[in-house]
């Protein structure tokens, strides 16, 4: 198994995620927390994020589908969701959340619906990309994967 090749792939994958604006510097903060005590910390936290945020997304969806939607509640849920995205540096998702909140404040239901679809899409795309990234890291192995691949 050519680890240097895999490491290069992983580094490239990570660089793309940053270059294409999927992640921001906050993700580095997360990586910095990984250590010998918690060698899979990044993946654990990212998994936790997707678990929590999926729940929030379905709550938002339910709130949107009500006959007369409660925009304050929608805004509150979106705000929570956005907070989570900030923690791991999910930049594109966060950006769509900001837009969603703007539509909530304007009580523009159509705008909310459209933007919510974008939030869901970006959320799903990020999940796919990060899953692929972690899968690659796992192939490289714990000793290699535990440290940040050099870009």
């Amino acid at each position, binding site marked *: 198994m050519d680890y240097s090749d895999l490491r290069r792939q992983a580094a490239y994958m990570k660089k793309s995620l940053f270059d294409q604006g999927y992640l921001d510097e*906050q993700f580095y*903060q*997360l990586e*910095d*927390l990984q*250590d010998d*005590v*918690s060698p899979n*910390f990044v993946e*654990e*936290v990212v998994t*936790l*994020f997707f678990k*929590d945020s999926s729940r929030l997304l379905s709550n938002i969806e339910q709130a949107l589908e009500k006959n007369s939607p409660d925009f304050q509640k929608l805004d*509150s849920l979106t*705000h*929570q969701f956005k*907070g*989570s995205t*900030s*923690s*791991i540096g999910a930049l594109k998702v966060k950006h769509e959340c900001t837009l969603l909140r703007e539509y909530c404040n304007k009580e523009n239901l159509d705008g909310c619906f459209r933007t919510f679809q974008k939030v869901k899409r970006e959320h799903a795309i990020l999940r796919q990309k990060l899953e692929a990234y972690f899968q690659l890291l796992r192939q490289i192995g714990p000793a290699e994967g535990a440290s940040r691949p050099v870009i």
Partner: protein
Amino acid sequence: MAESEAMLPDGFPAGLRVFVVDEDSVALRMLEKMLLQCGYKVTISDCPLQAFELLRANIGNYDIVLIDVNLTCIDGFQFVENMSREISLPVVVLSAYSDFQNVMKGKNMVQLTILSNPCVLKNLKLIWKHVVKKYLNEMKSINESSSMDVNISCLTKKSKDLVRKRDEDDDIALKDNLSLQKRARVSWTQSFMQNLSMLLIN
């Protein structure tokens, strides 16, 4: 007293007992990890109301409270204000809003220290200063109660050294508080004394 000659070990402020409250479990997990890496002891809670009860009942078990003010169930500003009034621990507030400080001032609330959330490690490293600052402030109001008296000139000197070495944060005017040269007799909370004694003995 033997303690009068003792200095705080280089380990301080390791073992500082931090109580963290954040409704976002992702942020909470990261805060916990950051604080553990600082060498602090961490208790976490994602429910502010439960946290308040826990703190009220076990105040001796913690040195400082860190709380994210963005709460869903209740008004965050009000909650933090109530908590600071009832609980004598130093409180550091985390907020995603950069203008939180202005809002707080505008509402004439207790001046708290505010860090941004998400947090960076070096900001969390500095929270021990709030604990020292609070106790040094208590020094000024000398209280001749029946609780333990202690000679804290050693603490003063060591705190000065620590501040000189780690003084990155200009917001904290610790230097003003450390102008006391003379020995003072003050009373401390039982918990802090226990902690300090443990540190001094080691």
